[in-house]
């Protein structure tokens, strides 16, 4: 098993992309866009990520897919009723609909999103069945043997000299169940370092031992880092 020329990696019919997405059949799945996170920060962070998010999402369509699924937490938070808070969501949806189909799974941050999506004829779905996979956000336990979830924002943090670097990653967890965890699509989120954080946010992941979790780090391509247990050991060895 190894990386393809374009940096992608295929496991069991699922293609992992360096664009922080996976492809199943003719559909790509991304998760945790957290649009509008800048505006919901208590400060004056300017609008920063929308352009990069749209560019990255457009690149995913270049792989020849027809549908893009956003697997939850498309919008960061809806606390204030500021009209321009919706700008990022509208902008993203409109750009995607120009190229292909868009489906959206509800996440824990997605209050009030249904209204705005309805205007574009898009339903805010609880879960989506695709091939033999169930696509859910992952903030609550669900039934299903094969799941694709988000919510966790997995990443790994490495040191080189006196600097440390964070790489988003996919997790592939398997026991009697199989769970594929997507990294956060938003470039602004810190991510949760699976090497040094031992508890998962998603209740779905609690049944997996670290030896049952495979790590796939993302940089210019997908790097297969082996299982989490061994990876933690190797990193301690230096």
């Amino acid at each position, binding site marked *: 098993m190894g990386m393809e020329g374009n940096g992608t990696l295929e496991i069991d019919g699922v293609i992992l992309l360096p664009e922080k997405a996976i492809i199943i059949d003719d559909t790509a799945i991304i998760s945790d866009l957290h649009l509008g996170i800048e505006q919901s920060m*208590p400060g004056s962070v*300017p609008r920063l990520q929308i352009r990069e998010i749209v560019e990255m999402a457009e690149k995913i369509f270049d792989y020849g897919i027809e549908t893009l699924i956003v697997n939850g937490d498309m919008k960061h938070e809806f606390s204030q009723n500021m009209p321009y808070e919706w700008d990022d969501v509208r902008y993203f949806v409109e750009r995607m609909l120009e190229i292909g189909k868009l489906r959206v799974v509800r996440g824990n941050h997605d209050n009030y999103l249904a209204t705005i999506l309805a205007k574009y004829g898009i339903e805010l779905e609880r879960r989506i069945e695709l091939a033999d996979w169930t696509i859910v956000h992952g903030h609550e336990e669900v039934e299903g043997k094969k799941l694709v979830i988000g919510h966790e924002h997995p990443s790994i943090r490495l040191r080189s000299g006196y600097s440390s670097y964070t790489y988003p990653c996919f997790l592939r967890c398997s026991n009697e169940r199989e769970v594929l965890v997507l990294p956060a699509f938003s470039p602004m989120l810190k991510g949760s370092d699976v*090497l040094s954080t*031992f508890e998962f946010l998603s209740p779905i992941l609690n049944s997996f031992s670290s030896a049952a979790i495979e790590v796939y780090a993302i940089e210019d391509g997908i790097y297969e*880092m*082996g299982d989490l247990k061994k990876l933690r050991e190797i990193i301690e060895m230096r």
Partner: protein
Amino acid sequence: MRQKGIVQGKEYEDSEIEKLLHPLLREWFKSKFTSFTPPQKYAIYEAFKGNNILISSPTGSGKTLAAFLTTLNMLIDLASKNELEDRVYTLYVSPLKALNNDIRKNLEEPLEEIYELAERKGIKLQPIRIGVRTGDTEQKERQQQTRKPPHIFITTPETLSIILVSPKLSRSLTRIKFLIIDEIHAVAENKRGTHLSLSVERLQRIQEGKMVRIGLSATIHPLEEVAKFLVGFENGRERDCIIADVSFSKPIDIKVISPVEDFFRESSESISEKLYETLADLIKSSKTTLIFTNTRSATERVVYNLRKRLGKDFPIRAHHSSLSKNVRLEVEDELKNGKLRCVVSSTSLELGIDIGYIDLVVLLGSPKSINRALQRIGRSGHKLHEVSVGRVVVVDQDDLVECTVLTNEALNRRLDRIKIPQKPLDVLCQHIVGMAIEKKWSVDEALKLIRSSYPYRNLTKDEFISVLKYLAGHSDFEKKRVYGKIWFDESEEVFGRRGKLLRPIYYLNVGTIPDEVAIKVITKEGKRVGKVEEEFAERLVRGDVFVLAGRTFRFLRSKGMNIIVEEVEGEKPTVPSWFSEQLPLSYDLALRIQRFRREMEEILNSELLEFEDAVYYLRKNYNLERSSAEAIVRYFREQNLFSFIPTDKRFLIENFQDEGSECYVFHSLIGRRANSAISRVVAFRAGMLKNCSVKIAINDNGFMLKLPYRKRLSKEEIIELLSPENFVDHLVRALDRTEILRRRFRHVAVRSLMVLRNYLGREKSVWRQQLNADSLLRLIKKNFGNDFPVLKETYREIMEDSMDLENAVDFLNRLRQMEIRLARTPYPSPFALNIFVLGEEDVVLMEDRKKIIRSLYEKITRLIELRAEALADSK
């Protein structure tokens, strides 16, 4: 006759001053004192005449009364006529919260005595109120102050900026007669002072009459610049100010002591043994000794070792800013009451808290600046005409040379020049928000006010507008307003506040000192071992080894706001001590040491002079003991024999191999701040030239580059690397992805109110919980470029405040007139030794993110293959 600009003051006769005083005050004064002290002779008369004045004089010289006597006179006069109103007449601002209560006491005592005197004479006086307001003042007292404002109001810079937007209290601040700013020297050089200078100009705006400014400062140079900082500008011209320079009136006795005769022939154990012996002897021979170390950790270490020698009951204690407030107060009290024989402090006792009788100050290691040396030594011999006695105990050969030059300069009163930060945009952000809360502004009106503050005198309109646009949220790529703190109409050029939340946001986030969230460090057994800064915790990766309170720990995992560790002995830390407390050597002093080196070289190379002559020369001209003079001559002679002596006329670069890598030591004696800038640029260029990563080590005396095996630099290449051309551009590129950039960016982002540390009473760490600081930095660069105010200020702060860009470039320009000498040596020369043993402190990376993950990936693949082979073999 009208005086002009900044002028030197003069001493007035006692009789001239007495004539001005109210009879009650005159009588009280004469019953207490025989004469006015020098600062009083300079200041009181001028303040009476309504002239701004800057007083520079040592502690214990009656400075407080010099500043306040005019106020007391005015208030007593009004009180006797029953004309005292409910408003603030005098506002006193000090950066030291601890000093505020002392000042109140020092004013209440004379007032009590004067009231007694008045009562005996049957004169009725209205009560004069004194109020203190800081962040610690209770709600009840605050309300009282708002209802009935104190006549003398004592506060801190931060509280002043909050009072300015308080709708009620600010109304009693519109007819201030005297504004007294204490300890100016402690703030002029940092952003707290910049912040204060803008607050003062905002206060000036709401004045209905003349507000006389009185500044108090310790020894500092040049006073003209501090005076300008105090009074600011009006209509583009600096306001008038009189300088009362009485800083030289206190005699000093200062001497260098070397604990050993030859630092190279003694082991480090025996040096440290003799060092503590020397300290113990000094302590025993005097009544009360104050020892200054340069770091907090050294303070504890010295107390621990001295207790071992002097007995555990010997009255000696530590005093530094990491100790709790109660402990510090306890130590101060014991000191004042004469219960202690010795106190060991880092910087916390440098400033003006009254510490009672000290007869000896010991400086352990170079204080790195002449001003600081004088300030510290001035803490002994509290009375004005008493001699201040200081002993500088040196810790190694370079320290000995440095302190020899330093004491000589201090005796000759050649001071370092201060450096006032120029127009920091983050501090400006806070004030623009504060101003917007006060009222609606036109751009020109606001700019005029801001430019009247000395640090902002050169602020351009473009810079100002870019900050307004950032705060208004115009920086959005679609030119839409996003989440502005203020509104700004660009075509009409007016701005004002937006939203009701702005006032509480301002209250909770004003200030310039980055207060960090502390993360608890816990062992896996659940034992608490201490705290680290949040930023530090955030950069830890699995497997990292770091030092905390002298012990070594391995980072295992994070859990909520805690980190879990295990203690490991003898492992090399993988995380640098970024948060180095090291004081940098001042550039001016560095240049004098360069000259001293030449002086030594000339003596050593003169055929007529021998070893003894050189020793005699040093003893005579530098007031050294025989052993110290011999140690210096030997040190220079060895360097001279081994390689060359670097001087102000010769720039020496030494090259040698260490474990295969090529080491280049650059003997640029210009202080670590300037060295830090040059070393990064040179390392960056060397990395580009040789296509490799370059490790660097920096100290005050120079810097070292470490290149991989066989990456050798020729002399021509080195000269090329030292070119002043494109220096700033290369420095910006060398800073990419460094910890210093990340760290300073976070601080500036908080100070610019981009990321709030406190939002509506909830202190939550946005950084730790959500934000990826690296991406934030990257996206800001990508979307708005390096001129975005928050980023622009980050680079300015790093290059101008943390590093010394100006002098770095100055040095490189001077290289053209210098001899540049490259010496290839078999091992580090005596002068190179201290830089060499530092080890690498930072690295200018040429490799990118890809390389790091790839090398780990390859390691894993190799391990998997090995295991597979092992498995196959066992079958």
